[in-house]
């Protein structure tokens, strides 16, 4: 466990700009005779990465973030423009669709070729061929040219070859998405066995479900750089929150000039901290929200508290008047209201707390202040909140028939 299986230092890749045909000729001359660089487009910058044997890493990021480029650099298909990458072991890669199959040849021929590319030949290949064909499970299509295959079949074939090779490092690029349900399950099961047997995985996927299921660590690439690396749940949640924020229509803020208003918010404390920074809390812990408000009329306002997901979807809202609570007077025209949520059942992710003072009748809403909170935790449950539940087993299944 000493040397990392994959190590990359300062890895970068830039593509030359070739808009016009004359650029190609100039590029050729430049490469042959070592002339200086001209216009290049950076797709990956300064990536440092170390992957130990037995680790499973998910690469996530938007389209064009450089995920595939990073994979191609690791597999050696691309040559880095800067920095270096080293892999100390055998490597099996499924990059995009097809895995380099030739459309005119039969599945069987392509298996032989793909296996030869991975250094498998002769008797060894003959021994494994039935196993590969059985894993791909595409029936008589195995002797048809690959151009007649559906994209799912191509992936099946590619995965079957890799599965039989059992490489030290498996690199896959969004391939699980194409297979049908049963084949996906087969692949996921195989990858789980492979990981349990000490295999190392780099998975690129837009399916957070697959990433969370198969990977223990994740790296988030944004604009060609690593934005975040770490535990898979932390990274995927941050990534999803980023998307929620991006897609959220500018929240319908009731932007009313604060000065000159009857009621306004003076300060918001989350668990005793008044800060613009998002508050990190653990799933199941306690959240206390305290709000200082100004009331010009000398009447205690109603405090309304709402929790929304980062994209603006309402989760829960409650007003102090509903429960018959009245904010305390703490100074001249200043009132303080506080609420506690014990056992926060919000599922891990990013949320916002919105606080509003309302008139004492609880009819009109003034001012809005929003604070972000991030709920941390490892959970694969879906949705926004955990609903209390228990799984029924045995006798408890039919309580009526006792």
């Amino acid at each position, binding site marked *: 466990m000493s040397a990392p299986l994959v190590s990359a230092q300062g890895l970068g890749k830039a593509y030359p700009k070739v808009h016009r045909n004359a650029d*190609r*000729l100039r590029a050729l001359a430049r490469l042959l005779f070592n002339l200086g660089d001209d216009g290049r487009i950076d797709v990956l910058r300064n990536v440092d990465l170390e992957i130990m044997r037995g680790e499973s890493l998910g690469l996530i990021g938007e389209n064009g973030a450089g995920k595939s480029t990073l994979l191609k650099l690791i*597999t*050696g298909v691309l*040559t880095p423009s800067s920095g270096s990458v080293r892999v100390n072991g055998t490597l099996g890669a499924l990059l995009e669709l097809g895995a380099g199959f*030739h459309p005119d040849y039969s599945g069987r021929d392509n298996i032989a070729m793909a296996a030869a590319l991975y250094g498998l030949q002769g008797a060894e290949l003959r021994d494994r061929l039935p196993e590969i064909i059985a894993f791909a499970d595409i029936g008589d299509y195995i002797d048809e040219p690959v151009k007649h295959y559906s994209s799912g079949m191509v992936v099946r074939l590619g995965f079957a070859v890799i599965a039989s090779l059992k490489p030290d490092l498996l690199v896959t690029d969004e391939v699980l998405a194409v297979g049908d349900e049963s084949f996906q399950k087969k692949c996921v099961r195989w990858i789980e066995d492979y990981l349990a047997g000490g295999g190392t995985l780099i998975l690129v996927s837009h399916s957070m479900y697959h990433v969370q299921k198969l990977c223990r660590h994740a790296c988030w690439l944004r604009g060609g750089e690593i934005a975040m690396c770490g535990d898979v749940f932390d990274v995927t949640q941050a990534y999803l929150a980023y998307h929620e924020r991006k897609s959220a229509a500018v929240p319908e803020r009731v932007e009313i000039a604060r000065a000159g208003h009857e009621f306004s918010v003076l300060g918001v404390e989350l668990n005793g901290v008044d800060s613009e920074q998002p508050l990190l809390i653990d799933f199941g812990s306690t959240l206390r929200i305290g709000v200082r408000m100004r009331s010009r009329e000398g009447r205690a306002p109603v405090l309304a508290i709402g929790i929304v997901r980062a994209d603006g979807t309402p989760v829960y809202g409650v007003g102090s008047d509903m429960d018959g609570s009245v904010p305390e007077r703490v100074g001249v025209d200043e009132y303080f209201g506080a609420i506690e949520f014990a056992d926060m059942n919000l599922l891990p992710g990013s949320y916002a707390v919105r606080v509003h003072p309302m008139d004492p009748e609880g009819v009109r809403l003034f001012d809005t202040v929003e604070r972000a909170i991030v709920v941390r935790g490892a959970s694969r449950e879906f949705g926004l909140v955990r609903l209390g539940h228990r799984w029924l087993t045995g006798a408890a299944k039919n309580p009526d028939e006792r």
Partner: protein
Amino acid sequence: MSVAALTLRFLNRELQNRFAGSFSGGLWALIQPLVQLAVYSFVYVRIFKAQLSGVGAPGYVAFLAAALWPWTAFSEAIVRSTTAVQDNAALIGKVALPREVLVLASVASSFLVHLAGFVAILIVLKLAGQGIAISGLPYAVLLFAPLFVLTLGIALIFSAVQVFVRDLAQALPQLMQLMMFAAPIFYERGLLPVAARGWLDLNPFTFYAESFRAVLLNYGTIDSLHLLIAIVTATVTLLIGHWVFRRLDPHFEDFL
């Protein structure tokens, strides 16, 4: 991954590819040259009445065949392998492999096919009573070695450059035709004006055209100086080809 095994695998695929979809398969490798030979003998001997002067000169068809088949191997190998890298763009983009293998397999397949055709033609000509020196056949096969090295060198350069400048494959058939007529394939050196004869040696194929005739037809001789020059030329070409290919190889993916 063993380069030799991989080359064999690609070579196998190339050969399969040539005859895929045809009923007679590999038989075409023999039928094609025979038909071609029949056409040439009809056109040149019956219509043009071509013949060589001098006592003990071989028949024109044998004279032509001895140089034309090696030429076909040479020129076809270059034309085909120039696009060898480009044609495998899909593979190059997905699997890390030594890309020289693609060029090597392509050149080797052309040579294998035409070498087989060449031997068949020589046997047919011999049976037809032409003065083919079958004893020279091993030397002829040996002559293919430097020719192969030369071809591979050129092919490495062309296939790498083709990735960047796609015009090469378009211009190549014309260039090869020019080179063909600039070598003593359809004619012999003695037919040229004395002043022009020396220029033929600038064409690397001239040596091969004349040498194949020397060993197979006992027509002319191979002198050791020219043999040495040919071997050096072939080796240097391969070295340059390898250098160019290595140099451009890391950037193929950017331009494919």
